[in-house]
């Protein structure tokens, strides 16, 4: 490899320079829209808060087992920006700590769903019209025949209520959507000339699937992943709202809303701020995802 590099006449052929170049172009397109940049800032804020939660929260000890009846049900004030809950824990601290599990869930669910969905979707798409296609896609159809939130709820219901099982339940209801998307992309890409050329030169099926077809699905996959972080968090919150996710005293956005709803008119801040936090999370990742879609779409400059 080294010798080849030395004889290359100009640096553009260097893959690193090329990647950097295309990244620069993507960033240029991305930064044209101030909403996308706002989304990026929101996403970075959420990740920063989640990673450094013990250092940035005013009351890090309130994330676990903690009781302070003297300060229970405090309305928002300078001591407690978002108030305190029924046993005196600072709501802002608990929201920031719950971002950790929300993001962890999104990462786990999406990495498994994307790998599984891409693998099955690519295979079915490349062999579309054969028996492999029929088996994979009809199984997918069955999973897609109920809304993911109901499937995830019912799977989580029969398992033990833990964060791990909630992740399993959401993953099972999430992967078929990636299969379906990759399938429709792969089954049209396989008719492109470059795929046919690779077939004619005798490239292996693995090479064709992963080096010819997959890179051309990647922009759609990245866009969907960025958007899905918000939606996975939402379904995760739904599970914990029902009581099927992370168990108390660990903080979870859904659990906090469920607790707050019972205190509704009097102590409105207990439910409202976690609800706004979910809104912030989904909005951030949506703006970011839309920005990625615009930046990666090839047609317009």
């Amino acid at each position, binding site marked *: 490899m080294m010798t080849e590099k030395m004889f290359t006449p100009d640096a553009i052929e260097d893959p690193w320079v090329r990647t950097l170049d295309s990244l620069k172009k993507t960033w240029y397109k991305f930064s044209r829209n101030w909403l996308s940049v706002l989304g990026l800032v929101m996403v970075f804020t959420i990740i920063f808060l989640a990673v450094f939660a013990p250092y940035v929260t005013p009351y890090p000890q309130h994330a676990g087992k903690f009781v302070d009846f003297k300060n229970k049900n405090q309305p928002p004030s300078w001591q407690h920006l978002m108030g305190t809950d029924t046993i005196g824990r600072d709501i802002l601290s608990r929201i920031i700590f719950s971002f950790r599990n929300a993001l962890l869930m999104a990462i786990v669910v999406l990495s498994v769903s994307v790998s599984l969905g891409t693998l099955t979707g690519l295979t079915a798409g490349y062999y579309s019209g054969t028996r492999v296609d029929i088996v994979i896609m*009809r*199984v997918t*159809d*069955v*999973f897609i*025949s*109920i*809304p*993911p*939130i*109901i*499937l995830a*709820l*019912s*799977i*989580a*219901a*029969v*398992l*033990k209520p833990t964060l791990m099982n909630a992740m399993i339940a959401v993953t099972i209801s999430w992967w078929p959507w990636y299969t379906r998307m990759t399938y*429709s992309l792969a089954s049209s890409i396989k008719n492109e000339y470059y795929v046919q050329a690779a077939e004619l030169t005798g490239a292996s099926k693995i090479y064709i699937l992963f080096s010819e077809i997959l890179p051309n699905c990647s922009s759609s996959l990245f866009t969907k992943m960025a958007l899905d972080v*918000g939606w996975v968090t*939402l379904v995760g*919150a*739904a599970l914990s*709202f*029902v*009581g*099927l996710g992370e168990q108390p005293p660990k903080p979870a956005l859904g659990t906090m*809303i*469920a607790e*707050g*709803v019972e205190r*509704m*008119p009097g102590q*409105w801040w207990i*439910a*409202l701020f976690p*609800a*706004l936090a*979910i*809104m912030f999370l*989904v*909005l951030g990742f*949506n703006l970011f995802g839309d920005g990625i879609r615009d930046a990666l779409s090839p047609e317009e400059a």
Partner: protein
Amino acid sequence: MRLGPFILRRLALSIFVLFGLSILIFIIARIVPGDPARLTLGPRAPVYVVERLRQQMHLDKPLHQQYGLWLWEVAHGNLGDSLLTRRPVKQDIKEFFPATLELVGITAIFIIVAGISLGVTSARYANTWFDNVVRLFSYLGIVTPAFAWAVILMLLFGFVWHLFPTYGRLTEGVIPPPTITGMYTVDSLLNGRLDIFWDAFMHLILPATALALPPMSQAARITRSSMADNQNKDCMSSMIAYGVPDKVVTGKYLLKPSLISPITVMGMDIAATFGYAFMVEKIFGFPGLARYGIQVMLNKDVNAISGVVLVLGVVFITLNIVVDIIVAYLDPRIRLLKGGIR
């Protein structure tokens, strides 16, 4: 191609999906940790009683035989007994499903009427202040989940301004109308009791709005963009050049192709509303199937869980068929595809 054969093929496909769904539900019901017979009888029941129930429940047979027997029972409408309410699941579902159906029905009306009219108006006055306001709000609507809307609406309209009731299906003391369909608004109208109808309807407004806002915003956005795409097509300009009245161009030739993608999305979203209803019903203390579903889920009531999922799955599949038929009616090209699948 005619619509008839298309519908037949579509139905055949959904029978297959329904069959697959039944396998999925059976698997979910069987991954419960622990012995279902023991769960039914409780920890203090003697061993021989548990053993007898195991035989009654066919738990001693191989798995595929168990599935066959279960499917046979389900096909005859027998979903087993609920461990929680100690009643047949079928009876429970009959009691709670109409309330949810009523709620989702009103939600669907909100979504369709408001979503399409907002989208059409917004496309008609594209790039004006009205359009910009609608676009901004539809973005906010989409990213705010239904249960966050529920909390916000409840605070604003229930507690700050006292415009709408926030709990249950009827005001306390109001006697529900005699059961005909189980849906209070329909039953009270059939009985000519306008006062009860109004009360039930007022109770539905907040939960239905919370459920409708995200899909409605989505529908408005998609209607707008698909109208805007079609507006710029050559056939539209030539029609305007011929002097075809504006009403006919918009109402007939523009609306029909533009509604295809919004209808597809709305169908999926209305079906997904049954899922979000789980949270919204709990927040508003609305005694529907979803609230029942949460209770049985927390109690690992396997028969009831599979009953609820089965009913919702059937509703979802039916909705999908209806949407596909409407779309095939609107778009002749789709009828040519094999059974409408891709």
